[in-house]
């Protein structure tokens, strides 16, 4: 439906690729329709995608919608056993696969396998198919996304057409992009932001430039070569981009808008980025897979006001995820599910058309009133700005006191001798949990403990401090807390 609309409005614009040889929206629609026919003919139930970003991604994504089959991107960075387990759960499925990945799932039954080049060649020529054949049932499942499974077997988050279309219609202006605009997508296909970027860009009419495997130098070179105007990155990517831009003494004046999300952004990184990109409009977007991407955002004006202010209250806005989208509701709830007022921490609950809150086996997690408890801790301030403190699972309970790791991490990161920091609960016989900190940097343990005691209070001061060359993140910028918890528990 979204692509169909794009073709009606601006079919000759380039949808994906370079200005010279990219696919137009009309070509993308033709290819997606042919792909959809092939998926239908294969008689499978789903369309799996095991590959890096390429033009095959939007063709397969929209082709799956055409065929009325859920699109299921698989994480090619998983270990073999985990990948095979997900492939087996996804079968019977048509699978579009990169050459280097094909043999990894060769033993899985029930897969109708096409490699990327075959897939793109097969959808290149053929009859132009009638767009009215598109499946339009808003209740159909559009996408199944496996969660990263940090606490057990990955769950398959269900996103229906009504959720994704609701999100796009509610947050993106149709044809809102100028013809010269291009967005650089460097998040992978199996991340909600990677899929949302395709849908948003198609609806806005913004050309998509894809970067398959993120590397800061390649990213910078692509921005220059393709005159990229928009991008979305995770915090770890921005940190590397800022480092490389500084090292190369380079400016990227074409970049008008940079949004970031997917994890906690360290204050020093965003401050440096705001200085390096003086004209760029920054957006901090907060959302979950289960909410079809963004539910709250901190806009460009708030970023600049906070960046240039000396007032701690205004500065603090840089650690906020801004205000909820006007199309949905956000509420902070206590342990009993009762709403709490501004300034009181609790769990972030969200309700709206785009909120799916549903898993394939486990079913809907929405309350009777349609609220989705996110399992993220947070609070609202008096002006309705949302501050997210992290997963409630990560909250440290030390001697009966609930301690949010994010609060301590922010203080540690404010020390000039700290470049990265993570705070983790460490099992303790005496306290239940104690506070462990893992630091990248040169600040001494005494300095850091004193800093936390002074800024917060002594019970927030880390009991154990370890030093590392770098912290473990997955490729979408999520800190692997369980790895650090194991290391801290051992020490």
């Amino acid at each position, binding site marked *: 439906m979204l692509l169909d609309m794009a073709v009606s409005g601006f079919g000759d614009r380039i949808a994906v690729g370079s200005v010279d040889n990219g696919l137009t929206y009309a070509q993308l629609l033709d290819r997606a329709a042919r792909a959809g026919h092939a998926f239908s003919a294969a008689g499978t139930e789903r369309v799996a995608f095991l590959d890096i970003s390429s033009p095959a991604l939007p063709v397969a994504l929209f082709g799956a919608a055409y065929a009325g089959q859920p699109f299921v991107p698989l994480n090619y960075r998983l270990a073999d056993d985990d990948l095979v387990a997900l492939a087996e759960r996804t079968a019977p499925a048509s699978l579009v696969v990169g050459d280097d990945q094909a043999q990894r799932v060769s033993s899985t039954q029930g897969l109708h396998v096409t490699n990327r080049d075959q897939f793109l060649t097969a959808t290149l020529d053929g009859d132009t198919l009638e767009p*009215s054949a598109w499946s*339009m049932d808003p209740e159909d499942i559009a996408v199944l996304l496996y969660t990263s499974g940090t606490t057990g077997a990955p769950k398959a988050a269900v996103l229906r057409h009504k959720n994704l279309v609701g999100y796009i219609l509610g947050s993106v*202006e149709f044809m*809102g992009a100028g013809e010269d605009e291009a967005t650089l997508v460097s998040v992978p296909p199996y991340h909600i932001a990677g899929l949302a970027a395709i849908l948003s860009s198609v609806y806005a009419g*913004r050309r998509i430039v894809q970067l398959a495997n993120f590397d800061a130098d390649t990213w910078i070179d692509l921005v220059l070569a393709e005159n990229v105007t928009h991008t979305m990155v995770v915090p770890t990517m921005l940190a590397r981009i800022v480092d490389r831009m500084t090292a190369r003494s380079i400016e990227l004046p074409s970049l008008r808008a940079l*949004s970031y999300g997917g994890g906690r952004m360290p204050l020093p990184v965003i401050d440096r980025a705001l200085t390096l990109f003086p004209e760029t409009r920054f*957006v901090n977007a907060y959302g979950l897979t289960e909410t079809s991407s963004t539910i709250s*955002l901190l806009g460009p004006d708030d970023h600049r006001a906070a960046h240039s202010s000396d007032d701690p209250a205004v500065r603090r806005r840089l650690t906020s995820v801004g205000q909820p989208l006007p199309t949905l509701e956000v509420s902070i709830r206590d342990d009993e599910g009762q709403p709490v007022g501004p300034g009181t921490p609790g769990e972030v609950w969200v309700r709206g058309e785009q909120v799916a809150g549903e898993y394939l086996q486990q079913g809907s997690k929405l309350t009777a009133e349609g609220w989705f408890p996110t399992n993220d801790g947070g609070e609202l301030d008096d002006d309705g700005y949302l501050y997210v403190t992290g997963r409630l699972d990560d909250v440290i309970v030390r001697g009966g006191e609930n301690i949010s790791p994010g609060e301590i991490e922010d203080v540690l990161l404010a020390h000039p001798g700290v470049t990265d920091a993570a705070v983790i609960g460490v099992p303790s016989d005496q306290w239940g949990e104690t506070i462990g900190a893992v630091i990248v940097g040169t600040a001494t343990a005494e300095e850091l403990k004193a800093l936390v005691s002074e800024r917060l209070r002594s019970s927030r001061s880390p009991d154990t401090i370890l030093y590392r060359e770098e912290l473990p993140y997955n490729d979408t910028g999520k800190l692997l807390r369980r790895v650090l918890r194991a290391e801290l528990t051992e020490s």
Partner: protein
Amino acid sequence: MELRPGLKLSSAVCSTEVIVVAGSGDVDLTCGGVSMLVPGEDGGGGTAADGLSEGTMLGKRYCDDDGAVEVLCTKPGDGSLGLGQTPMGLKEAKPLPASD
């Protein structure tokens, strides 16, 4: 006509095309006061009724008073969109900055 989200309609009096964003059931969606056409339906070449030729704008949304029916213009034209002979209003939305 039987309305549903995703349904494409074209004007019988001008070049306007819309896609239904919200609304369902039996609704007489009109352009220039004349019922719009579903894909494949004949009946073009009509003329807009007096006072119903304000025109449509590409990319803009139009809705009825209570917001139950909403359409998005995918091709502009000269007629006015309406439910029966009642014109629909232009829906003003404050654009959000791109977030993904």
